[in-house]
């Protein structure tokens, strides 16, 4: 009936929602800009992601990324031709660092996404259903937490065999309990909110309560943890590469580059310093971004 009277009502409702959404984003960006360190983190993360995405095209020696070597050029120090020098196979270190960014960053992101997805599902089920489900799922998570993450990842990666996907799975396997615990705790808190009771009183079922009322209210801490965890996931990927599990050579990977170059320290320092610096920069920038996001998303820590 109302539609006949106001045929334009539906359209204005939709555009109003879009406007409100833009407004919310602008507000978040404004708050983020208040802290120069988190803006630096955001800028670095964006830069790293762009480099990782375009590395194969902008590298000065793209063929080195795919494994070709140049024995005449072994261990040349940094110069205008090779900004970061060359390694023991005569490969351009800058090209390898750029090529390795793709593996390291995207594997790190994939680990966190996978772990957050699994952890959220497990934590939400445990927190909402409680009782036996909670006990079983959380004891399983505790069991995972008793094993050192890196050892578990090494064992699983070794069992599954080399390859990026296997490595991501291996690391995620030890990573989800952290998310599960976080989400469970948050769900337990939100489950008791009055608006959840009110929604139930007006006929909402468990699925709607989870999706519309509980999960949207707990995304902030999950996003903050995700952004902080990416740095550590990158570090773990590099660690696996360092001990020789994970990505198969000749695919360049920061940890594995560092591991090889370690044997030629301190004389040929550039072959180790630059991949190491890349790992450092990636971890630092994701941590800065995570801290900034926490300030934006968590009203309690707002200064």
């Amino acid at each position, binding site marked *: 009936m*109302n539609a006949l009277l106001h045929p334009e*009502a539906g359209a*204005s409702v939709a555009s109003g*929602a879009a406007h409100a959404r833009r407004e919310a984003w602008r507000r978040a960006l404004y708050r983020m800009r208040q802290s120069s360190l988190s803006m630096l983190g955001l800028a670095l993360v964006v830069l790293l992601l762009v480099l990782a995405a375009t590395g194969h095209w902008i590298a000065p020696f793209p063929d080195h990324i795919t494994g070709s070597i140049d024995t005449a050029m072994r261990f040349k120090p940094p110069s205008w031709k090779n900004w970061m020098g060359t390694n023991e196979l005569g490969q351009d270190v800058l090209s390898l660092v750029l090529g390795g960014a793709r593996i390291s960053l995207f594997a790190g992101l994939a680990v966190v996404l996978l772990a957050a997805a699994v952890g959220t599902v497990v934590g939400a089920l445990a927190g909402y259903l409680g009782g036996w489900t909670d006990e079983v799922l959380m004891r399983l998570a505790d069991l995972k937490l008793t094993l050192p993450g890196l050892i578990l990842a090494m064992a699983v990666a070794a069992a599954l065999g080399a390859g990026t996907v296997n490595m991501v799975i291996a690391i995620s396997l030890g990573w989800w309990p952290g998310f599960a615990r976080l989400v469970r705790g948050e769900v337990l808190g939100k489950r008791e909110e*009055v608006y959840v009771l*009110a*929604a139930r*009183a*007006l006929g*909402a079922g468990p699925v709607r309560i989870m999706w519309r009322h509980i999960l949207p209210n707990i995304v902030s801490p999950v996003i903050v943890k995700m952004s902080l965890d990416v740095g550590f996931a990158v570090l773990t990927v590099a660690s696996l590469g360092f001990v020789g599990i994970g990505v198969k050579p000749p695919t360049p990977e920061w940890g594995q580059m560092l591991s090889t170059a370690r044997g030629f320290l301190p004389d040929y320092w550039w072959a180790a310093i630059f991949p190491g610096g890349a790992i450092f920069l990636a971890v630092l920038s994701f941590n800065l971004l995570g801290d900034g996001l926490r300030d934006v998303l968590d009203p309690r820590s707002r200064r």
Partner: protein
Amino acid sequence: MPLLHIRNLHLAMRSFEGEAHVLNGVELQVDKGEVWGLAGETGCGKSVTGLSVSRLVATPPARYMQGQILFDGQDVLAMDEAAMRPLRGRAISMIFQDPSTNLNPVLRVGDQIADVAYEIGRHAPEVLGLTAQAGSAERKRAARQLGVQMLERVGIADAARRANDYPHQFSGGMRQRVLIAMALVGQPRLLIADEPTTALDVTLQAQILQLLADLVKRSDTAVLMITHNLGVVAQICSHVAVMYAGHVVESGRTREVLHAPRHPYTRALLAALPRPGLARGQLANLPGRVPDLIHPPPGCRFAPRCARATSLCEKETPASVAVSDKHRVACVHLDAEAHP
């Protein structure tokens, strides 16, 4: 058949100290179109009674020991969650106390009310003006529109635009209006309002109460208004039930109960109402405190605080006696009082 008939409802709540007998034989009968006030002190079981009707009391820690809650002749205590869900929001609706915690802070107001309408439309498409064949996209659109219409009806200006706002952009009174709109979107037959105006300013209380009274009168909805404010009861309730320690001590038409109270507790409650004309220091209070529900006193639970209590009161729990058509009182001293 009454719309809602609570019969001898007993409920115990498990706690560290032991099992508390929170409801102790609640009797209540609500007919279509009646507005009942459920009055009493904090902790007397008003809210638990209200939540029980919608089956929203978690069991455990609560345990229903005895009694029935007949809604339309069906015992809701015997129903499971799946059977209960189509009733909620549609047949039995609720409004809670504090409007600042009742709305989901991260969902737009329009989405929240549309969600309720959508869910109700699944079981009752006629509420949305649709037939059973309507698809979910169609239902979504109709739910959205009905939501905006309801917001208009509860007096939200520029409702179509305000529907895109978040709850924090609304004032307390506006939020309570939104909650009323949400509760009434399914055209419920029974509305349970748990202290709907307690968190509001006095001037707003009257507005909201008036709005609520108008809306339910138009749709013939029965109301169970839970309150500790007898002023609210006098304003909008046609009937009132006074509860003490999990028991309805007096019930009947508001006029009869408030003008000619028969139970000592009702009298004490009325005497404790502050009035502007009262001299400083003259406000009566009721000595003593609500009894320990884990170890309730024997006999009448009000006896330890009652001025008229005799040894008889501690012997037996007084039965509820009809003193006139609908007026019922649970006190052993009724006869003595009727013929002083």
